[in-house]
C-alpha cells in the first residue's frame, strides 16, 4: 500500500504525516509513506485544501488533521 500525505509544509500537514507514520508503525501495516510537497504534484489530485491524504492514488481525505482512529479506518477500508 502506498500512502501519500499532500501538503506544502503547513503545521497541519506535518501533524498529519506524523500521525500516519505512528499509526502505520503501531499496527505494523505494510505501507510506504511519502510526503508530497510539490504544489504541481499536489494539484494533480484536484484538492483545494491541505493536508490531503491519498491511499493508493485515491484521495481519501482533504483539509483535516484526522485522528488515529480515522486514519486506521481509512487504511482498513482501502485494503
Amino acid at each position, binding site marked *: 500500500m502506498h500512502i501519500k500525505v499532500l501538503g*506544502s509544509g*503547513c*503545521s*497541519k*500537514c506535518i501533524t498529519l504525516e506524523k500521525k500516519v507514520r505512528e499509526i502505520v508503525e503501531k499496527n505494523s501495516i505494510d505501507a510506504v509513506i511519502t510526503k508530497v510537497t510539490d*504544489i*504541481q504534484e*499536489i*494539484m*494533480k*489530485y*484536484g*484538492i*483545494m*485544501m*491541505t493536508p490531503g491524504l*491519498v491511499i493508493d492514488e*485515491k*484521495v*481519501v*481525505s*482533504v*483539509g*483535516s488533521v484526522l485522528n488515529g482512529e480515522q486514519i486506521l479506518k481509512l487504511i482498513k477500508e482501502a485494503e
Partner: protein
Amino acid sequence: MKNKILIPLLLLPVWVVLYMYLEPMVNFLVYNIIGMDKTSHLTEAIRFFIFEVPKVLMLLTLIVFVVGIIRSYFSPEKTRKALEGKTLFVGNVMASSLGIVTPFCSCSAIPLFLGFVESGVPLGVTFSFLIAAPMINEVAIVLLLGLFGWKTALLYVATGLFIAIFAGWIIGKLKLEKWVEPWVYEIKAGNLGVESAKITFNDRVDAGFTAVREIVSKVWVYVMLGIAVGAGAHGYVPADFMASFMGKDAWYSVPLAVLIGIPLYSNAAGIIPIVQVLLEKGAALGTSLAFMMAVIGLSLPETIILKKVLTYPLIFTFVGVVGVGIIIVGFLFNLVF
C-alpha cells in the same frame, strides 16, 4: 449517542446563565472575596482581566461551534462550482460572501487559488474570496461582538465585504492574468477524488466540536495576552494617550496605521484586544478599524505564500488595492463617527 445535538442544546442554558451573571460574579470575587480596594488601578486591571477572559472565551466557544456547523454545509469545491463562469461584480459579491462561510486556512491559499483559477473562476473573483476569507472570520466577529458590541461587529463585516468586493472587482477590471505565474494556466488539475459521503446532522455537530477544539486551543493564548495588555493599559495609561497621534485630527494616522499594519502579522485574537486599548485611549474608530483590517487582512506571510503563483507586480497591485480600500474605509469612519 443517537442525537448529538442534545449535548449543545443542554449546555446552552448553562452558558446563557453563566454569561449573564459573569460580571456580578467577577465583581463579587474581586471586591468581596479577595477584598481588593475598589478605587485602585490595580483592582480595575485585575477585575478587567478576570472578567474579559472568560467572557471572550465563552463567546468564542459558542460562535465557533455554530460557525463550525454552518461551515460543514460549505466546502471549497461547492464554492468553486458556484463561482465558475460568474461575471465580474456578481461573482465578486458572491465570492466575498462565500469567503466568510467557506472553510479556509491561509496555508491552503495556494491549492485554493489554483483550483479556482483553473476551473474558470475569474482572477478578480478569486481575489475577492482570498481577501474576504481571512479578514472576515468568526474569531474577528466574536471579539468585536464581545469587546465592542454588535454595531461595531456588523460594521466590520460590512466594510470587510465592501473592500473584498471592490478590490476583487478592480483587479478583475485591470485584467492582470498576464501577471500570474505562467505555469499556473498550464498545469492540469485532476478531478476531485473524494466522493462526498452522506453527512448526517450528528457529523455536523461533531464538526462544530472539532472546530471549537481546533480554534480555541490555538487562539486562547492570544486572547489572554491581548486582554492582559488591555488590562494593564486599562488602569494605567491615561485616557487621551492615543488621541494626539491616532485621534480624528491626525489625518495621516489612517495611512500610517495601514502601513504599520501590513507587515505586522497576527490573528484576530491577538490584535483585537489591543485595538480595544487603542480605542479606549482616544484613538479614532476609523484609524483603529483600518489598523485591525491591515493586520488581519493583509499579512506578509500570506503574500509570501502567494509569491509561488503570482508575480511581484500582481502582489503589489493586490496589496495596494486592498490597502487603499482599507484607508478609504478608515477615513470614512473617522468622518462619520
